[in-house]
């Protein structure tokens, strides 16, 4: 054990962790002070989550030392860490939905609370201390995400926590709920608790963190007081290079009509007809569940839909399944990368070659050398970060996994590329690279149908958007020349169809 100043609650020194093929953490050292809100920023895959999982005991570190509250910690389990006073509130909250608020706060410790009466009374006290009014007998499943988060905080306090780690707590909060959380954070700080706040939203970091550490590629790039950082400096350190714009310039390559879709009708979709032009990015704007994904799945033959017509270059094509869609020149990036896009335990190479596997065969035999070429080419062309094309794709970060799927389709040069949430869960730098790729695809004569829940993304990338509400197309707009609220009100079904 080394001498640690009394104002340091947690000291991490040279902690490393690697998974097969990937260095998740490389000699990470940070000191966290008592009574301070310490922000950690970094893109996905920077190593933030791995570090937290080591602290909580979900993973074991390969080397380095962790000293918490003056005691060196070698091996630990999530429960032991909590008892020592180190609580972690994860993005996906760990509460039992079918039990009450009070029961969740003291889960497994009813005896210590002398039965349910004590449990609820003590839970009440803790909730009051953070200004939360929710009844302790309410079921968790009836609560909003922000209230659940408060229950988690109360639970952390019940362990007499000295340090609370919050992992991207704001990702599902509204602005008011966020303000509430900020208030609680200030309160906890005033009580002398330390907080580690993980986020990639810079506004939050600048609002209430005292000290900020930037992580990138498994390393700590810099740690210093917030006041010494500028916003641009923080971004540059996060992504490792300067990014002037979040989006590349809108492509200007729209040509003549490439595809016509006529009257898709299902129990959820009503008379969906639209056209797609060569060199165009066509965005679908609508709420989750409005039918955006259903439209592209019907188009791609992923769901059984009958009775609609698709014309490509004026010729009618029958697309009854994804294979026929592929043959007709369509490519598809599905919304759920892990469940629908990748074969996770398989290598990067075989994930990239999946769609073109038949193209490099001779008499039904795979030509390995061609396959290797394809893998290597796409890894290089899309700068996919991977130690080799042979490692399982599951070891890659989200952005790099997504690039593998893009590369898979680029290999068959589709003329129509359907992208359903192509940048979900990937970091700023990788997002930008995907945008640049999209631009390149349409400039080379392809066309893209883009679905995204991030409104700025659709509006900044698309040449034209269709608004979709409850299974109908409610409008068609050029986002460049249309006010955002006009588009939004059409997407929310507030105005009659424009098309």
């Amino acid at each position, binding site marked *: 054990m080394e001498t640690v100043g009394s104002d340091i609650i947690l000291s991490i020194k040279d902690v*490393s962790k*690697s*998974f*097969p093929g990937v260095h998740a953490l490389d000699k990470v050292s940070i000191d966290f002070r008592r009574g301070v809100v310490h922000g950690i920023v970094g893109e996905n895959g920077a190593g933030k989550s791995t570090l937290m999982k080591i602290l909580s005991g979900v993973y074991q570190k*390969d*080397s380095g030392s962790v000293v918490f509250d003056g005691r060196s910690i070698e091996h630990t389990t999530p429960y032991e860490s909590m008892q020592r006073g180190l609580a972690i509130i994860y993005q996906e909250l760990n509460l039992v939905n079918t039990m009450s608020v009070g029961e969740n706060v003291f889960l497994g410790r009813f005896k210590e609370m002398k039965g349910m009466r004590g449990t609820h009374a003590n839970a009440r006290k803790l909730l009051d201390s953070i200004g939360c009014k929710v009844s302790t007998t309410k079921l968790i499943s009836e609560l909003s995400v922000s209230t659940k988060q408060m229950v988690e905080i109360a639970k952390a306090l019940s362990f007499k926590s000295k340090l609370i780690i919050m992992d991207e707590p704001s990702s599902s909060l509204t602005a008011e709920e966020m303000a509430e959380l900020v208030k609680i954070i200030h309160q906890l700080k005033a009580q002398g608790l330390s907080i580690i706040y993980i986020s990639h939203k810079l506004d939050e970091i600048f609002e209430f963190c005292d000290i900020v550490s930037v992580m990138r590629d498994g390393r700590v790039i810099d740690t210093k007081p917030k006041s010494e950082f500028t916003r641009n400096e923080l971004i540059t350190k996060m992504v490792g290079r300067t990014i002037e714009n979040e989006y590349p310039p809108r492509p200007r390559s729209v040509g003549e009509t490439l595809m016509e879709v006529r009257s898709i009708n299902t129990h959820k979709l009503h008379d969906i007809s639209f056209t797609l032009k060569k060199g165009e990015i066509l965005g679908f704007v609508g709420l989750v569940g409005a039918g955006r994904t259903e439209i592209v799945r019907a188009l*791609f033959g*992923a769901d059984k839909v009958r009775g609609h017509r698709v014309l490509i270059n004026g010729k009618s094509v029958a697309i009854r*399944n*994804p*294979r026929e*869609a*592929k*043959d007709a020149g369509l490519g*598809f990036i*599905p919304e759920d990368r892990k*469940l*629908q*896009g*990748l*074969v*996770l*335990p*398989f290598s990067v190479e*075989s994930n990239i070659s*999946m*769609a073109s*596997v*038949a193209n490099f*065969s001779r008499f*039904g*035999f*795979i030509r390995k050398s061609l396959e290797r070429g394809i893998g290597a080419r796409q890894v290089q062309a899309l700068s996919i970060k991977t130690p080799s094309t042979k490692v399982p794709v599951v070891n890659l970060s989200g952005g790099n996994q997504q690039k593998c799927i893009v590369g*898979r389709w680029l290999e068959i040069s589709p003329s129509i590329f359907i992208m359903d949430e192509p940048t979900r869960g990937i970091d700023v730098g990788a997002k930008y690279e995907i945008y640049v790729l999209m631009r390149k695809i349409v400039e080379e004569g392809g066309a893209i149908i883009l679905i995204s829940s991030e409104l700025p993304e659709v509006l900044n990338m698309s040449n034209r958007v269709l608004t979709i509400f409850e299974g109908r197309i409610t409008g068609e707009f050029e986002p460049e020349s249309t006010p955002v609220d006009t588009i939004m009100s059409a997407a929310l079904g507030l105005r009659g169809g424009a098309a």
Partner: protein
Amino acid sequence: MKESNPVLRAVQVLFRDYLVLLMIAVLVAVTAIIEPKFMSPLNLVNIMRQFGPLMMVSLGMTFVIIGGFIDLSVAGIINLVAVVTISLIQPIGQVPALLTGLGIGAACGLLNSAVILSSGALTQAEALFLTFGMSTVFSATALLYSHGSTMHFWDIKTSKSIFETIGAGTLGPVSVSFVIFLAVLFLLWVFQTKTTEGRAISLTGGNKTAARLSGIGISRAIVVIYTICGLMTGLGAIVLFSRITTAAPVIGAGYETNAILSVVVGGTTLKGGKGSVLRTVMGVLLVVLMSNCLNLLGVSTYLQVAVKGAILVLAIWLDNRKQV
């Protein structure tokens, strides 16, 4: 601790991925010491004969499991193929009978896939119950066809030389069934590892949704895996009744569990996607050697069943521990 020394790593990998080889070696060594009869040429030839039918069925089963499915109908297929084939030798001649037998096996597999596809049962659990149902259909057909009676080679008046060769013939030092096994193994290995259809099967097993959305014909893959399994099971049935020279409508009993046991013990994961016919060869070898060894040691049949069950559980447990 990060980069442990290469020898240790190699041992770890060997232990994790080739545990079954190690177990075979230990089994052979222990048995040979306790019971010298084990290494006698007679017993070794016996073992070579014994593993023929199970090997064929297990090789077929490997494809179904790599494809992410399972086939419980192999016992029924064996029953049906055995009684029909043996009954046809006299009326239509031995070559047509042989081909009919293989055809029935393949047709049963095809029927399985048709049932699965038409009902949209794309999970392993659904396939488990559907093929279990099909197994009873095949077995009952075998009973109806044979009126429940057993047919013997000596009942057949015409030539049955092909079947006698398959059952008892030798080619130099090895049995004919062993040569058949090597030939079939080579073909299946090439199919699994070198062809696009073999790849499509692995990808289907690895993630059906992703494979389908990448334009891979997963329906075709499902038809192919069940047809291969049916065909190989038909071949297994023929090798089996040729060796024991009789065909009862219940001779397939237990083959489904033994085949699944062999495939899983060999190291093909029940989750689908990853596996190999070569691993299955090791799995079958272990299962057959173990039976032989327990028999030589005079262990009761009841206990043997328990041991097999325990090994299946252990194999699945180890496989799940392997995942990071």
